[in-house]
């Protein structure tokens, strides 16, 4: 059977989660590989979550929240953006292909956009192949991905 990647999505409760619900209500068909974890806000997303997801066998990660000006929490996602700039370096450090982490903004009304992101993420990760998490000690080892 062809490679079926595992993709974990960290999304905020107000915008993207609602957008993903809307995609469902609108019956938009999309790739089945994405599993959503609901968080209050992208501001709550800790870079370690992403590392952890890879360590636990994810092949790709989506991080998505409200559009910068529309954050439910005024500025929560502003902090997320700042943190994730630093996070890019971290990915490099652990040896992860940055293409495995997809950042986006999806509002509550953008069901179609969510579908597009899911589909393109699935396609990208399928192309990159499985991510081999070579961890050693809990959380401290380097992740190496075969891509």
């Amino acid at each position, binding site marked *: 059977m062809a490679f079926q990647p595992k993709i974990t999505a960290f999304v905020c409760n107000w915008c993207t989660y609602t957008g993903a619900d809307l995609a*469902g209500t609108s019956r938009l068909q999309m790739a089945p590989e994405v599993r959503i*974890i609901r968080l*209050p806000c992208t*501001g709550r997303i800790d870079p370690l*979550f992403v590392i*952890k997801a890879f360590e636990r066998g994810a092949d790709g990660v989506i991080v998505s929240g409200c559009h910068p000006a529309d954050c439910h*929490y*005024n500025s929560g996602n502003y902090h997320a953006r700042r943190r994730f700039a630093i996070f890019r370096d971290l990915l490099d450090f652990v040896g992860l292909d940055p293409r495995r982490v997809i950042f986006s903004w999806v509002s509550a009304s953008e069901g179609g956009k969510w579908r597009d992101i899911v589909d393109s993420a699935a396609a990208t990760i399928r192309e990159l192949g499985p991510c081999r998490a070579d961890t050693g000690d809990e959380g401290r080892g380097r992740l190496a991905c075969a891509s």
Partner: protein
Amino acid sequence: MARIGVFVCHCGENIGRTVDASSVAEALRSHPGVVHAEDYRYMCSDPGQTLVREAIAANRLTGVVVAACSPHMHERTFRKVVAAAGLNPFLCEMANIREQCSWIHEDREQATGKAIAITRALVEKVKANTPLETIRIPIERRALVIGGGIAGIQAALDLADGGAEVVLVEKESSIGGHMSQLSETFPTLDCSQCILTPRMVEVAQHPRIRLYAYSEVEEVSGYIGNFEVKVRRKARSVNETLCNGCGACTQACPNRKVPNEFECGLGKRPAISVPFPQAVPNMPVLDRERCARFMAIRKGITKAVCGKCAEACTRGAIDFAQEDRFVTEKVGAIIIATGYQLYSIGKEQPEGEGLSGYGEYGYGQVPDVIDGLQFERLASASGPTGGRIVRPSDGRVPKRVVFLQCVGSRDPSRGIPYCSKICCMYVAKHVMLYRHKVHDGEAVVFYMDVRAAGKGYDEFTRRAIEEEGAIYRRGRVARLWRDGDVVKVQGFDTLSGEPLLLDADLVVLATAVRPQPGIRALAQKLSVSCDQHGFINEAHPKLRPVETNTAGIFVAGACQAPRDIPESVAMGSAAAAKVLGLFSKAELEREPTVARVDAAHCAGCFLCERVCPYGAVGRREVRDRAGRLVKVVAEVNPGVCQGCGTCQATCPGKHVEVQGFTDQQIYAEIAAL
């Protein structure tokens, strides 16, 4: 030991068509910690709920996962069900296998597999859930209303009539706002003072309203239900308890040449004055900038000058030495109703970055070119001319009045792109008032569109044209200048294609509506946001029009956007209803998904304090038994915290956590997916 129950819903065919619900239940039955799993056709139906309740009791469940629709749909429903069965409601989670699974996939096998994975992850999360108690916050059943225009007056009266205590803060010496300056009001031509004055008096006499006129909000702290407000009561130089409003002082003041702000500069007032006869409170203010005595003091003259007002006052109420005083009020909710100002016809635009004024209209330096409020004063029976519409320059009755609409509005080059909404209507009103008083006068209106969307509004503007004979010319005017006795108006009628050069006796500029100066500073004190123009942002443009993004703070009237009187009143009432709704509860109940600091481990770096978008993080001193300071730690105010989790993601040691979204819970979920 966890004893989790899993309930898988078919939602009729909605889930059942692509997800094999019984296989999901089957798969979960063998998941560690799951002691009960079953599927049912409609889990939210009465029998479905009963089934959950009974299973909890029968299996002594310690946690529940409902694999069904989105939590946005039924999380509340099932948490209630769980609570009814005696379990803490926060030990229930929903696995979304409908919106995010069955509805978006067609392959039954894949969809079922995914549903199992999703449900497992939530089971893992529930295992890490802890019982949470709903937060209860006491409410101070008093409200602060800032601004005593018609919006603020309406809100204050509705609140007080509804049983709440009200503190009304007005920065001018009387309440009434702009409505007190208007002559008659569209769309019915009611006399503005006649309908406003009784309401102002009601405010003054209401036992539950405390009016602080000539006062401003200095500082605000606290949060919904528990604000503390410091009010600056500016020195009137008049003792409020002694003064009886007889007016002898204002009669006695020899310094009578001060431009009258209430009359928009069209009249004069003494240095000690009441803005208008129906003022509430009816009590003068001594203008220290213009009073001879204070001017002498500023010049260093030590001898007491003038003092005629004090001599005239039989009550001894004049108090030259009075200073600003401060009072602190505790309130549970705040309504902002600070109204508007007009785009100035002059060059300077207070707090108007990028706004330049109109050189081609002479920056207000051309005699007999006035703004809309000045026209209101000319038309008002209580105005400086007793309601005779005459030219400010020479007192002559104007035979042709030219009105220019959209001055400053709808003009991105001059900085204001929006439509001010009320001016089409008040220009039509001005036309009528003018024609009613000057029967042979000619009214010419330069407009771009007539925007009159309201009950009876279009009929009103049509009346101005059809019955009052106003000549509406479609086009913006290029230039105005004074030529001898008249004002030349160089315009164009885009409908007839005619260039026009009109001689006007009086020109009225319908200038844009802008928020009050000082609004940004006030918004900052209240932690609410303004739009790019300075209007207060509502929480949602359609569904939460009188709330702000800060809990417990509401907005009404023209400080939110250009508004006419009916809308300002409606907003005032709506904001009051919102506040009364808030006050109707014994305590504020809030979801306990707020952050909590682990004081034992908190290092006191206060990174969390810096990033919190709501200012919910405070500091607390930790002392040992002998009372010595051990350390200072962060502390989250649960009344303010919105549970966004930014602090948690920021804290280097993870010593602050949002309840319900702890690291442990999320890691459990990640691991299971």
